[in-house]
């Protein structure tokens, strides 16, 4: 019961930060809100037993992506123009989609239900067979590297490709600045 109540409070705080991020127009403040949001998400992951995921979210969401967004804001400016038109159409679209999704959840198994279909398929096999087949106590690592090795190879290829893409777009070498007349505006 304690876990459930901590979970409820943390998720409530996530909603508050997300709504604050919508209402702010200073991109610097929005980025800070996003950092807080990621940190809260990392705590939620710890509460929900996903320690490996929490690790990654804490390092990536709070550290690296916040730094990247700040670097981008440093390059493009921190003020957001207020939209000229009323945001009624987007609001309508969002509410309709949200109601449809909530309708969809009515068929879902309850939170923490051990009989849910997700827990009946391959997960018991992985948990049961991992010690004999790989000799590794951390099931997340054994699935990641061994049972689902092809998936991880693909993910690594995506990260590699994204890195190469950033290199192609921005480059690592410092630009030679020939003269002021040649500079991009």
């Amino acid at each position, binding site marked *: 019961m304690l876990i459930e109540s901590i979970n409820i409070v943390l998720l409530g705080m996530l909603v508050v930060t997300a709504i604050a991020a919508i209402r702010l127009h200073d991109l610097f403040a929005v980025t800070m809100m996003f950092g807080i949001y990621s940190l809260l998400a990392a705590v939620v992951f710890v509460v929900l037993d996903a320690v490996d995921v929490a*690790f990654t979210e804490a390092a990536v969401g709070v550290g690296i992506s916040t730094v990247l967004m700040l670097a981008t804001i440093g390059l493009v400016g921190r003020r957001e123009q207020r939209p000229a038109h009323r945001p009624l159409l987007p609001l309508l679209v969002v509410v309709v989609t949200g109601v449809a999704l909530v309708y969809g959840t009515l068929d879902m198994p309850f939170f923490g239900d051990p009989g849910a279909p997700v827990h009946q398929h391959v997960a018991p096999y992985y948990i049961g067979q991992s010690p004999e087949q790989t*000799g590794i106590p*951390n099931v997340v690592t054994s699935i990641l*590297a061994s049972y689902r090795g092809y998936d991880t190879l693909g993910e690594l290829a995506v990260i590699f490709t994204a890195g190469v893409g950033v290199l192609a777009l921005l480059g690592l070498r410092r630009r030679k600045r020939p003269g002021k007349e040649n500079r991009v505006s």
Partner: protein
Amino acid sequence: MRDNPVLRVVAKIIIPMILLFALYVQFHGDFGPGGGFQAGVIFAAGFILYGLVFGTEALRSAVPPGLLRWVISLGLILYTGVGIATMLMGSDYLAYGALAHDLIHGQHLGIFLVELGVGVTVSAVMVTIFLAFAGRNDP
């Protein structure tokens, strides 16, 4: 931030600890929480902190961009190389059992190498991305 002594001293103390912790997460990932992805991002976070506090120019001399470009592909090559090695040893692609004389040892070795490949590529890509963004507005 380069002339703030408190920040410089604290960063100098913290950065080796972050890097050491990343290595622990990398090599202890079989037994506790951890693994290549986590270790890669933590390792990169250490370098990014260095770049933030001491400037991108200092980071550039610590990690030469030319070297970084090779390291990005090194991890992916290590990963695919493990798969090719298991094929050459007469098993399926990425079936680590063939790497050693018994199954458990082969799995241990294979998972270790694959996680190492993941960690190397992830950390190199993250540092590269940071350098690409932060180096953009250098004078």
